[in-house]
């Protein structure tokens, strides 16, 4: 029988003796590529209990057991490196960008808060916050540097804030500049995500919008996984806490996970939100599948979704009447 091993093909007899061998050269690169090519090869698999090391010694591929291991070590190591470098697909880059965006947002917000606390002591009347405040401080520093034509000038002149010492001013200005560059960074990442989504998942971008689409890919782990999810899973991605509460105890099932940020859902009245979330999720899963398996853009998806949502809303124009509970008290929900 024929047996594939990482160092070549062996032809063995009935008792397991090696009749013939076609060996690969002892070049690591060649062995790596050959070994990787065997991953999906279902023919000539080694039989149960087959010992490739013994075979390698017998057929003369290696002289000693130590040589076998050292060569195997190099080959597996290089093969793994090659596979890892190939694993960074475009959707993985989007995931990194989404996570970076969340980190940048968190950092920016807490630094912004710190800046506003800090500068508040010197110019509490400014009424500025966030990026505007950071830009203001980076530009002017002390409120005394404002020109008379600036709209904030009267407020600055009558401010109850303390005088900003030069040393503090330098520090605050630098701090504000860093925050400004973080805001800039945020915009760049957002643009990057939008552009990459257009390339990687145009349909998902169309139906979900770039940020929601990217977040769905990020939570699913990859575009492939998202495409394999049933739409009911997509509907509740990001609501795992509520979902498991529902599965464990008698809590109500979640209507929507992060797809709640979809404008069709968060603008809908409460009594149709679950229905609309289901419709949106089904189109999202279609979009992800088209993106992963064919990649062609299909604008009819959004049209169909909008028709469906309109239909749901016209069929349910009013909130449902609460059912009168007759007789016994309603069961109390068990909480865990």
């Amino acid at each position, binding site marked *: 029988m024929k047996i594939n091993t*990482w160092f070549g093909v062996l032809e063995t007899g009935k008792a397991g003796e090696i009749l013939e061998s076609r060996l690969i050269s002892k070049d690591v690169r060649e062995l790596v590529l050959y070994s990787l090519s065997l991953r999906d090869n279902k023919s000539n*698999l080694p039989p149960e209990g087959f010992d490739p090391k013994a075979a390698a010694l017998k057929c003369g591929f290696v002289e000693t057991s130590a040589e076998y291991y050292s060569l195997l*070590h190099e080959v*597996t190591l290089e*093969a793994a490196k090659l596979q890892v470098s190939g694993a960074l697909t475009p959707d993985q880059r989007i995931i990194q960008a989404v996570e970076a965006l969340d980190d940048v947002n968190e950092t920016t917000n807490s630094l912004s808060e710190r800046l506003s606390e800090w500068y508040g002591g010197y110019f509490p009347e400014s009424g500025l916050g966030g990026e505007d405040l950071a830009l203001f401080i980076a530009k002017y520093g002390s409120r005394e540097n404002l020109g008379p034509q600036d709209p904030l000038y009267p407020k600055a002149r009558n401010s109850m804030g303390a005088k900003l010492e030069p040393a503090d001013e330098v520090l605050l200005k630098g701090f504000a500049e860093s925050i400004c560059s973080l805001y800039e960074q945020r915009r760049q990442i957002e643009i990057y995500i939008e552009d990459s989504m257009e390339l990687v998942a145009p349909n998902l971008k169309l139906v979900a919008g770039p940020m929601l689409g990217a977040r769905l890919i990020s939570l699913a782990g990859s575009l492939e996984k998202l495409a394999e999810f049933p739409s009911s899973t997509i509907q509740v991605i990001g609501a795992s806490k509520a979902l*498991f509460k529902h599965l464990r105890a008698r809590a109500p099932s979640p209507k929507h996970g992060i797809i709640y940020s979809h404008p069709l859902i968060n603008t809908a009245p409460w009594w149709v939100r679950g229905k609309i979330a289901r419709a949106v999720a089904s189109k999202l899963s279609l979009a992800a599948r088209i993106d992963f398996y064919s990649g062609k853009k299909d604008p009819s998806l959004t049209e169909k979704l909008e028709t469906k949502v309109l239909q749901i809303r016209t069929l349910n124009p009013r909130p449902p009447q609460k059912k009168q509970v007759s007789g016994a008290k309603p069961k109390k929900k068990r909480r865990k």
Partner: protein
Amino acid sequence: MAEVKKLSGGIFEIIKGKKQLATKNLDPGKTVYGEKLIQVEGIEYRTWDPRRSKLGAMVLKKFNIPLKEDSKVLYLGAASGTTVSHVSDIVSEGAVYAVEFSPRSMRDLIGLASRRKNVHPILADAGKPDSYSHLIEPVDLIFQDVAQPNQAEIAARNTIRFLKKDGYLLLSIKARSIDTVANPKEVFKEEVRKLEKAFEPGFEILNAKDLMPYHEDHLGVLAKLK
């Protein structure tokens, strides 16, 4: 002064104020995951945190760890190599075939393997042993820590292909990855039953204990072929 007690082949207990599990460092001077290095009589030991390693917890739970200096080990679910590094310390003359499916974890594992000659990293799905059968020799021990719902099946498939007749299977079963809502005790019972009947002739369970207080809802299992 620290005192060293040998627990079993390659596994030590260092008593230096408190008791600590340790292995001889095969890669002297280097730590892998922030563990401590302790020098005793010219030999460098790495402490082994049972809370970060199911195998470490099994040692403390008095499992018989069938590892020798020249053992060949198939390690399924190698992750970043925390435990793999200790197995590599123990089988200093043997080989560890470390199978891991996640490219992200593999990145760390490659870093480890490039410093340790007896670790052979394999990026593959442990549920598909055919995809790496061309690389692996018959092994003395299969250690499995994969946190997959079909872990019993994965163990069976790999055992049939790669375990020597007199070899052992060490398994860590995570109840929460099989059924998130069921009672862990029920899940364990069911999984052990599955293992015993996984294939012909099946496993003989030698030991099964939960890994509390080191790991919650985890069961350690030592088995061999019937």
